């Protein structure tokens, strides 16, 4: 403990230097701006800025890139809340209740809680990183293909359990998303599936055009044609600040989201994406008024946003403790260190204490900087809503087109966005929940490859899933939750909370 505190003091002595603070500010501002652009998420932001950091010293390079990362994660939630455009998979859940709050004239509290939740979750994540990194990194390494399969399956089971509306519709949308994820090259066999000769589909369908189409474009199609256009909002200053009740409702979701997000974020792979989905489902399940979810519940913003940001910190655990990149973003960050001739790995903390502790301390500083930057900017962002919708939606549509094009510089993504916009419009008219499509699309390729790897490991024997404690526990938990989920379908007489609140479709 004493060594940790000494290290942290060393880190703060570096991170609080004025020049490094300036770089942290610059990184956060750039990240926020990049994150607001659909398609240009944290990975694109970091990749774009990576060459610019080659001339900087490694500590400053890490501080700038860390700032961009945090900023981009927060920037994505701004467009989700104000325009219903999720810039990336992690923001999908934020846009459901965040945008509903905007429609109810409560964009200010939604943005403020997102910023505050991000701050607490980020700080919690850094604390966890600092105190538990070696232990958690060892745990993360115990995650092989069977455990990963079990985790992903558990994510899908939880989706069924947490479903707010008709469970059949939720499951069918998850199935649709999983099927969309089958498009492209099968990584186990090398077969190209359902691409119809289109080379651009070889890598599969990216989540950004699907999410922007399903959520952003479908919203434009539904809203722009209304007989009465949406009212222009002119929020007053006091309406921008969350009330005491908002804070009371958000404390629990922020705490639970932070813990959940951090633990999921540590796991190698892109599992962090499910943290916001699981957090949203958990909050809806725990709420005394689940009917508020989807209609502007602040818990639906606080939980997923916190989970999302804590998962970002969690992803740094294997990177800093073991030198193993567990996601594309951490791989780029490792590249940034290696360019300077520093070898990441377990000895980083011994060989380069200034870099390790400077980076950890700069993560604290980055979170504070982000909060200081973004809370005053809430008022600025909310001013967008003063623009009449007739002017706003054409610009949002143009913004969606340019954002989706930016993902891979490909027109195919723009076409996918438009098709998904039309599909999303139709599905929303029939009361289908669209979030499971996004979750299914993200999980599908990961699930298929981890299942294939597990079976290859066991020579086709499925008992591998019950021979490994972590996988068995997760499967069992998922099955129990799924059992609870389908109970009302089997025992019609015994209704669960969904029926009580009139959300059960079947």
């Amino acid at each position, binding site marked *: 403990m004493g060594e940790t505190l000494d290290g942290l003091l060393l880190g703060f002595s570096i991170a609080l230097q004025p020049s490094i603070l300036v770089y942290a500010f610059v990184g956060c501002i750039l990240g926020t701006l990049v994150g607001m652009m659909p398609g240009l998420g944290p990975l694109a932001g970091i990749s774009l800025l990576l060459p610019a950091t080659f001339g900087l010293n490694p500590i400053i390079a890490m501080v700038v890139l860390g700032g961009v990362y945090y900023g981009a994660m927060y920037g994505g939630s701004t467009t989700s809340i104000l325009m219903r455009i999720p810039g990336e998979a992690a923001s999908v859940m934020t846009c459901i209740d965040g945008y509903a709050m905007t429609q109810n004239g409560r964009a200010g509290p939604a943005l403020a809680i997102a910023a505050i939740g991000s701050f607490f979750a980020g700080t919690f994540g850094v604390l966890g990183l600092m105190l538990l990194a070696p232990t958690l990194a060892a745990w993360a390494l115990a995650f092989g293909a069977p455990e990963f399969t079990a985790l992903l399956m558990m994510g899908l089971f939880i989706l069924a359990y947490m479903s707010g509306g008709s469970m059949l519709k939720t499951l069918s949308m998850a199935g649709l998303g999983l099927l969309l994820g089958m498009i492209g090259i099968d990584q186990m066999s090398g077969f190209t*599936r359902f691409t119809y000769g289109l080379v651009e589909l070889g890598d599969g369908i990216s989540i950004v055009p699907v999410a922007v189409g399903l959520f952003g474009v479908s919203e434009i199609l539904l809203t722009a044609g*209304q007989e009465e256009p949406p009212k222009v909002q002119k929020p007053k200053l006091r309406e921008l600040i969350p009330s005491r009740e908002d804070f009371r409702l958000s404390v629990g979701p922020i705490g639970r989201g932070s813990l959940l997000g951090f633990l999921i974020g540590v796991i190698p792979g892109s599992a962090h994406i499910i943290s916001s989905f699981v957090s949203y489902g958990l909050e809806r399940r725990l709420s005394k008024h689940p009917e508020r979810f989807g209609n502007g519940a602040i818990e639906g913003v606080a939980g997923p946003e916190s989970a999302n940001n804590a998962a970002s910190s969690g992803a740094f655990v294997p990177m800093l403790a073991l030198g193993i990149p567990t996601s594309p973003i951490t791989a780029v960050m490792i590249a940034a260190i290696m360019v300077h001739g520093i070898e990441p790995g377990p000895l980083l903390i011994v060989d380069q204490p200034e870099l390790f502790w400077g980076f950890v301390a700069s993560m604290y500083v980055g979170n504070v900087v982000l909060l200081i930057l973004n809370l005053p900017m809430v008022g600025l962002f909310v001013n967008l809503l003063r623009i009449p919708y007739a002017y706003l939606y054409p610009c949002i549509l143009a913004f969606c087109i340019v954002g989706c094009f930016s993902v891979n510089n490909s027109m195919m993504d*723009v076409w996918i966005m438009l098709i998904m916009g039309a599909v999303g419009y139709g599905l929303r008219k029939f009361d289908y929940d669209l979030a499971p499509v996004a979750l299914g699309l993200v999980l599908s390729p990961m699930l298929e490859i981890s299942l294939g790897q597990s079976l290859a490991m066991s020579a086709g024997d499925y008992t591998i899933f019950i021979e490994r404690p972590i996988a068995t526990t997760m499967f069992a938990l998922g099955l129990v939750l799924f059992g609870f989920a389908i109970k009302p379908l089997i025992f019609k007489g015994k209704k669960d909370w969904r029926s009580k609140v009139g959300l059960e479709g079947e």
Partner: protein
Amino acid sequence: MLVAFALYVAWANRVYPVGTVHVPGPGFMPLALAIFLGTMGLLIAVGGARSRPLIEMRWTEAKRAVTILIAAVVCVSALEVVGYRLTMMVLLVFLMGVIERKPPLMVAVLSIGFPLLSYYVVADLLLVPLPRSPWGF
């Protein structure tokens, strides 16, 4: 619709080896998911008798939604031919000026300003190669 889609996927999947439960081939997962989706679609259709009738649904916004969608499709088709800035200007003029009938001055300011500003940020600052017209614009 879901059942039809599931049937189509199952049919299109016939060209990929399905393999076995123990050694799944590239066609295994799509087939399993198509069966799952088809089953869900059937269950929804069976339970549909208790849902609200289709005829009661209001489609008042559909005409404008289709118009916006067609405008976007035309715009995206032209994007690589005419270039980003020009295409977006035409799209914004059509949506704001023709569909929404907004004052010409505001339409002109926004439909010229937005494409130029967004091009500057995305293409010049963020170095995304947005499509340009053959005339370099």
